[in-house]
């Protein structure tokens, strides 16, 4: 479904990615891991054309994504939940959800069933939500575009344990529904039982790829520092 091969990305003169390979098959949930500053978010920015890759291939369902503007990439069926719960603070919860919706199985009812708190807060402006609720809103907003591939960047970072649990439960539900997902996160204990495959980045390169069961102590020590 998604095939990223050998991409190199620069921020101005400084190179951030030196050859990232990443593959997501339809229906798969793939974890993108690595310590801070190893290029996870840059990979996602390149995927969405926000910081275009200078070389390499990015293909989604056999279509070349490089050189497409972000909105076209999103329209092809990629949904982004950006790092740091980016909602539109001045809009209400419902406006946030509906403005970018596209037809498909995910509609307001489905999203509000997944996150009942969003239904309770439908008319509140997004900035009055707690951090966890904003994260739910960001995920809900992405789901409303009915993406064939959902990309979650640090969806549980900096949230209270109770909320994290709720969000992981929602991600579980997505997994059961066969939602293809690329997920960036640091909590291995939650991630490993959930995902089908893992890719680890180090210094802007794909350093390791494999099944979660193969991710042994050695690899964890070496690449993840845990």
């Amino acid at each position, binding site marked *: 479904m998604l095939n990223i091969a050998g991409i190199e990305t620069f921020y101005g003169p400084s190179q951030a990615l030196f050859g990232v390979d990443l593959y997501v098959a339809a229906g798969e949930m793939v974890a993108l891991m690595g310590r801070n500053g190893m290029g996870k978010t840059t990979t996602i920015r390149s995927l969405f054309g926000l910081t275009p890759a200078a070389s390499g291939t990015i293909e989604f369902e056999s279509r070349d994504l490089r050189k497409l503007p972000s909105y076209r990439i999103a329209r092809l069926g990629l949904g982004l939940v950006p790092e740091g719960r980016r909602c539109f603070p001045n809009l209400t919860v419902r406006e946030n959800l*509906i403005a970018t919706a596209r037809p498909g199985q995910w509609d307001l009812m489905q999203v509000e069933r997944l996150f009942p708190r969003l239904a309770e807060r439908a008319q509140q402006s997004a900035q009055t939500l707690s951090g966890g609720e904003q994260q739910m809103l960001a995920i809900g907003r992405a789901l409303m575009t009915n993406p064939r591939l959902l990309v979650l960047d640090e969806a549980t970072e900096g949230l209270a344990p109770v909320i994290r649990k709720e969000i992981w439960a929602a991600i579980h539900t997505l997994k059961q529904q066969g939602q293809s997902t690329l997920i960036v996160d640091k909590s291995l204990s939650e991630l490993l039982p959930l995902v089908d495959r893992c890719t680890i980045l180090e210094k802007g390169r794909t350093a390791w790829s494999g099944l979660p069961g193969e991710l042994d102590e050695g690899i964890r020590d070496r690449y993840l520092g845990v």
Partner: protein
Amino acid sequence: MTRLHKGALDKTPGATPVPMPRIQRETWVNWALLGLLLLAPMIANALGEVYYVNLATRIAIVTMAAVGLNLAIGYGGMISFGHAAFFGLGGYVAGISAFHAFDMTPVLSWPITMPGTDNLLVIWLVAMLSCAVLALVIGAISLRTSGVYFIMITLAFAQMIYYFAVSWPTYGGEDGLPIYLRNQFPGLDTNDPLTFFLICFAALVLALAITARLMQSRFGAALTMARLNETRLATAGIAPYPIRLVAFVISAVITGLAGALFADLNGFVGASMLSWHRSGEIMVIVILGGVGRLYGPLSGAMLFVLMETLLGGLTEYWLLFLGLILLFVVLFARGGVMGLLAGRARHE
């Protein structure tokens, strides 16, 4: 644009019902202002004070021009410093049409013969269409830039049109063009000040209703998103550019219609309607009233026109006081008059 059909926001099937929010203070303020604008000229008319009826008409028209600009600046974040181009174009459509109708000469003789008309419905339609086309061109080019460049390029376009009008002798050039007989609305006597006020008032209410409806729609939410963060909007699959362009065109059409009414109110259209002072004046009204507040333009225009009339009668340096008030608003009352009367906006 099919994805952004109007009204999706509150008619989405399957949405859990949300209780109606109770009527807020801002709504009361809005109705009070609108009621004041409607009642004052009626009372003045009953007392035979035609001057005040015309003053209210002026407020209604200037408000409408600012309602248009507010859509661009307040909701769309497009700081257009060239809306006088649309205000003036609307005015010139009314003026030129009346000029030919009076002279019984055709407006166009090639490729088709188009006679002048004094029918307001036709004039308004032509004024709105011309403004839409002009805004499409100006917007398509200007919206490729942002920030201060957008301000400058919209100003540049407006100045081009201003100098064109000044140097085109057929329609008066620098001297402007008088409208000897006010254009006619079928079935109504537009020469009656109160009737003409009511026409303008109805147009204003329509413009407010359209703006409100638009901003409650999915289109409005997307426009707000484009203002707040266009990257985030783009990663959700919506291109910000066409949304802004459509909003810019609608904004220009509203301001253009106000221009057509303004020309008929004054019985005169001149290049001053196209000048950058006029763009600034409309912008000042938007800021005074409260940027991005639906009724901000109404409160701003009331304050502006009253100051112009009252202070302008006392001293020719009344703009100094306007400047001081503007300074106060920008420094201490960011919500403008609406902010003072109705508190902070829901979205602030």
